[in-house]
């Protein structure tokens, strides 16, 4: 078991969620509640990582991360190192890859809150923020938790994009799924097996929890 890789995967999961969740809440609620021009385009862009091969996504991310691009240059001047093959680059890539896994459940959850309930909150004198905190989020939270769990689990398992933009640098970009591949290449089947079992267990727990939560959403709609 590569504990450094395990720790890195966990860190990546947490860092991804820290950026992804607020972003997905804003995006998911906007897509659920508002009708605006270009809404379909935004939805398609969010869903893109679901159908795009990880290598294609990784390729374009590397282009953006490179020191020749504006993003790469700004990051390098701020942090002193390149975005490609760094933990920060990995977090950014992971956020993008996980966008559909987080935005879609959150959007569905907000869509399931009836419009008249939202309007009633406004008519009760609640500001949009207070309405979000006391009415909408309490009704939509199973969707938000599902999104968080799915995105976290998916971050742990992501392989293609991580390998493309992060490579295989111990304690910097070598996550658990990369470590499995790495160990297998070195004919260390035992270590690969332990780590694979760890990820399998996490995946099973994820499915159990998200299933229970989605049943809760359905029950609540009665």
């Amino acid at each position, binding site marked *: 078991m590569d504990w450094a890789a395990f720790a890195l995967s966990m860190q990546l999961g947490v860092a991804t969620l820290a950026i992804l969740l607020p972003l997905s809440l804003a995006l998911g609620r906007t897509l659920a509640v508002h009708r605006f021009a270009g809404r379909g385009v935004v939805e398609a862009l969010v869903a893109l990582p679901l159908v795009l091969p990880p290598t294609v996504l990784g390729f374009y991310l590397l282009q953006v991360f490179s020191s020749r691009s504006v993003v790469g240059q700004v990051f390098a001047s701020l942090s002193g190192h390149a975005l490609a093959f760094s933990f920060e680059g990995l977090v950014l890539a992971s956020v993008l890859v996980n966008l559909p896994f987080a935005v879609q459940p959150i959007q569905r959850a907000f869509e399931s809150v009836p419009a008249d*309930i939202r309007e009633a909150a406004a*008519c*009760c*004198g*609640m500001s949009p923020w207070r309405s979000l905190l006391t009415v909408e989020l309490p009704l939509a939270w199973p969707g938000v938790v599902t999104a968080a769990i799915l995105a976290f689990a998916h971050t742990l398992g992501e392989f293609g994009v991580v390998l493309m933009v992060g490579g295989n640098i111990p304690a910097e970009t070598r996550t658990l799924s990369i470590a499995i591949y790495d160990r297998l290449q070195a004919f260390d089947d035992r270590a690969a097996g332990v780590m694979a079992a760890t990820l399998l267990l996490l995946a099973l727990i994820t499915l159990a929890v998200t299933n229970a939560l989605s049943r809760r959403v359905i029950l*609540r709609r*009665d």
Partner: protein
Amino acid sequence: MTDRRLSVSLRQSGPIPLDVEFACDSGEVLAIFGPSGSGKTTILRTIAGLYRPSHARVRSGSEVWTDTTSGVFTPPYRRAVGLVFQEYALFPHLTATSNVIAALGHQPRTERHSRAQQLLTRVHLSDQVNRRPHELSGGERQRVALARALAREPAVLLLDEPFAAVDRPTRRRMQDEIDDLRRTLDMPLVIVTHDFGDVVRLSSHLLILEKGRTIASGALAELTSRADLSWLREAVGLGSVFDAVVGTTHRSRGLIELRFDGGSLLAADRTLPQGASVRLRVPAREVILATKPPEGLSLHNVLVGTVSAIHTDPAFDHVIVQLSVGRVLLLAEVTRDAVSSLRIESGMRLHALIKSVSIEVLSAHGRDETN
């Protein structure tokens, strides 16, 4: 008393066509009546700020809430509006009490709970307060919605089809309760409904709406006694609505005397106590006209009045005769033949014959609902 007059003027050609203008003063109950799809709910939503028509002006007292000309728009949460939604729209995850507390954000935190209890008691709901909406009956949900709408201390109370989701007996009971409640409220009340029973029972003023346009509007007694309102005749049948007080009661005969501004009528009723104020509707089809006082009839009610208007409609075989009896205007629907053979004309003195069982008595107080 603060000026809480609500004045509304809306105009747009689509997607929902609208062309209405009205005002409602504090203490008045304006019923917006019309078929479904006529834009009634859209008017309420515009007052609340939930809908923005292309041309609109909404004023509550001295505050302008919407004015598309000058670009003024107050968001719903800053408008002192109490809106009872058609399906109540209670917060499903909160108890009855918490639903009311949710609208008490303007009150100090420590006082919200007791204030919510007071409001729930006021709408006659004090024992189910810790239940969530799905554990409450339709009538109870409506009471919670009403308490929540009042919690904000609104400058205007809006009710959207308030009885559409409850059964008949509950409907009648809730009508009585809302009627009791509105007497204690110092604000304009606007009710949207497609049930004329609600209009007659609760409103002081009426606005008839069709496809977003005003067909007629004015005081209820005035509109219901107009001889020329063909729309109303076709939709619900004509019949004057006016208020009366119960005089002598004749329990053994099953009759009560109803005194109104200009005379008295006997109606069939066993339950109303003396002194109760009631609202009457006398259907125009049930009124018979005679030039001489009749004799030998099994009839109690013969009112004497003068013809104040006659309305003939080429598309309609009957004639509507308006008779003024004291300050009340009665309508009678008779055949053209009757009008010509009796030579009925304006200013003529006539006797109106009304069967006591055909008078619709809508109680305000004191009716024993178990009967």
